[in-house]
């Protein structure tokens, strides 16, 4: 196995920026971004990291894969919602590369795999960053990235170990697993449940999510919905790495997170507030489609998935025009 001498990071948001700047301090690192002015600024100013690391790294950035030459490792760090256009854009390029996906949720590997025969690594990351500008990311939570060979067309375990080693040497935290799905599903259940409830109630991660006293307390909904997801995981033979309910309790009770004034704003709630497309297809929707494939009932997931899609749809005002022939009377 050849050492990893060159890396391309796709997407330079908070997570992509953290990978690019850190790994760029060790090996030749390029960045593939969507906007020309973003590429121009990165080429001119490099990437600055503050917070848990202090770094200033030079990177080569472009919006054209052809301008970046082939690399050993390609890390796709865009949002899940962008995965299809990203995969189309890299199709036919980076023929030597192993591809690592870092998206939330489930199914991004399948999309990428349709556009090239790269060996693949699945990963999930628990680190977080705050994007202050196109060229400055604050490294916020220095938690681990977990990675392993994708179970369908995976890179070798030795290669996954090498990637984890590279990430660790660069100053970030990483761990390689033979089978990353138990960890991936733990985070998936945590995210698909809490993000969708947060998006629909417009509540950040407040203590309500752990309350189970009254019938209307949100903790009951969290538990019941997680149980649906656990049944889907179990039917696939996946033993969860961590209990998502315990992850929820830990998050609510850790530091200031659950305190009303400092509650963590779920990424899906942040998207809803900004009226951006959410990652619900990759989270709650992914569990719905797995449940359907397995013939398992997941009625709460069905409902929550429909509600979040409905919220997204309500932003399109064009439904007003779609059907002018029908009246505007009252239904009650």
């Amino acid at each position, binding site marked *: 196995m050849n050492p990893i001498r060159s890396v391309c990071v796709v997407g330079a948001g908070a997570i992509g920026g953290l990978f690019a700047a850190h790994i760029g301090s060790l090996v030749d690192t390029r960045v593939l971004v969507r906007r020309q002015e973003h590429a121009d600024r990165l080429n001119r100013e490099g990437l600055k990291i503050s917070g848990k690391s202090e770094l200033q790294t030079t990177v080569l950035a472009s919006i054209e894969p052809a301008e970046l030459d082939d690399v050993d490792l390609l890390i796709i760090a865009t949002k899940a919602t962008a995965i299809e256009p990203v995969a189309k854009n890299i199709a036919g390029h980076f023929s030597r590369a192993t591809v690592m996906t870092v998206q939330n949720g489930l199914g991004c590997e399948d999309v990428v795999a349709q556009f090239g025969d790269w060996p693949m690594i699945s990963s999930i990351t628990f680190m977080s960053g705050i994007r202050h500008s196109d060229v400055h990311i604050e490294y916020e939570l220095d938690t681990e990235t977990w990675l392993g060979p994708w179970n369908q067309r995976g890179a070798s375990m030795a290669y996954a170990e090498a990637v984890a080693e590279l990430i660790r040497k660069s100053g970030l935290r990483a761990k390689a697993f033979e089978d990353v799905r138990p960890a991936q599903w733990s985070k998936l259940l945590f995210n698909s449940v809490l993000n969708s409830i947060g998006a629909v109630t*417009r509540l950040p991660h407040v203590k309500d999510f752990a309350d189970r006293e009254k019938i209307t*307390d949100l903790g009951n909904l969290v538990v019941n919905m997680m149980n649906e997801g656990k049944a889907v995981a179990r039917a696939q033979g996946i033993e969860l790495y961590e209990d998502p309910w315990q992850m929820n309790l830990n998050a609510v009770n850790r530091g200031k997170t659950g305190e009303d004034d400092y509650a963590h704003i779920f990424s899906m709630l942040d998207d809803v507030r900004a009226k951006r497309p959410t990652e619900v297809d990759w989270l709650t929707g992914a569990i719905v489609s797995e449940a359907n494939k397995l013939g398992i009932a997941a009625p*709460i997931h*069905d*409902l929550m998935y*429909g509600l979040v899609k409905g919220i997204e749809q309500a932003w399109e005002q064009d439904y007003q025009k779609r059907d002018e022939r029908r009246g505007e*009377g009252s239904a009650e």
Partner: protein
Amino acid sequence: MRICIVGCGAIGSLFAAHLAKLKDLEVWAYDLDGRHVDAINASGLQLSGESNVLSYPRASSNPGDIPPCEFGIVATKSMHTRSAIESSAEIFKEGAVCTVQNGVGNEEIIAEYVPRVIRGTTFPAGHMVEPGHVEQDTGGKTWVGPFEPKPASWAEIETLASLMTESGMETLAMADARGAQWTKLIFNAATNPIGALTGLPHGVACDQPMLRKAISSLVAEGVAVAAALGITLDSDPDELVDHACEVAYLHKASMLQDALAKRATEVAALNGGIVKFGQEQGVPTPLNEVIWALIKGLEHSWTRDDE
């Protein structure tokens, strides 16, 4: 004969204005909104839209001003039922009180304070234009019947129904009015919160297959509870959902209007009512529980200011 409308908002005003047209009937309106009360006393109660009425009920925010009445019609939002009837119970010491509110559970509360209770369900809708002026958006029937544990007499029920019908609010007296009430309850509990949580008008939500399926699942839970209670529904609520798509495609459900205004909703009397009666009957209602919790969560989000 005297009648008092308890809670003279949009729905209460429809009844008050129509009934005040009748000779030989003294109509009072009890409402906490002083501006609305003052406007009614100064220049009458005006209805526009589906009805064109100007009539002169007497209004007060002080129950002590109101003489004893043979009939009461409670038309507050369901979360205010207890405080409204508690403060006005003295007026109905010898009377029969009818509810025309949304949801279930209002009769039980009213029965704690007055001797005889009439179950009621009304379809007309309206909205307040300004103090003293309500626009009626839709017409429709009202059904009244005995509240079985503490019923008004059949004569009282028929008297009230004929007064309301004569005034222009078509009302049917039913030996069992639960069918109409539960049909409306199940329809509202399945459709209203979907609008409130997503922001979608009724028909647009129904066009989305996942939401349409969710509505049917919520309807099915309500139908099962009604069946366990021995209630024969007036019509299939699921068909009402489709019918409403035809006639009210862009209608924003009242709970969606509450959500847009960040006002407390009537979820406890709708989905909460189905859940509570379901528990009593041993009928599971898991999705209505989910909806109840989600709306309570949404209401909580309005009390925060971190956006």
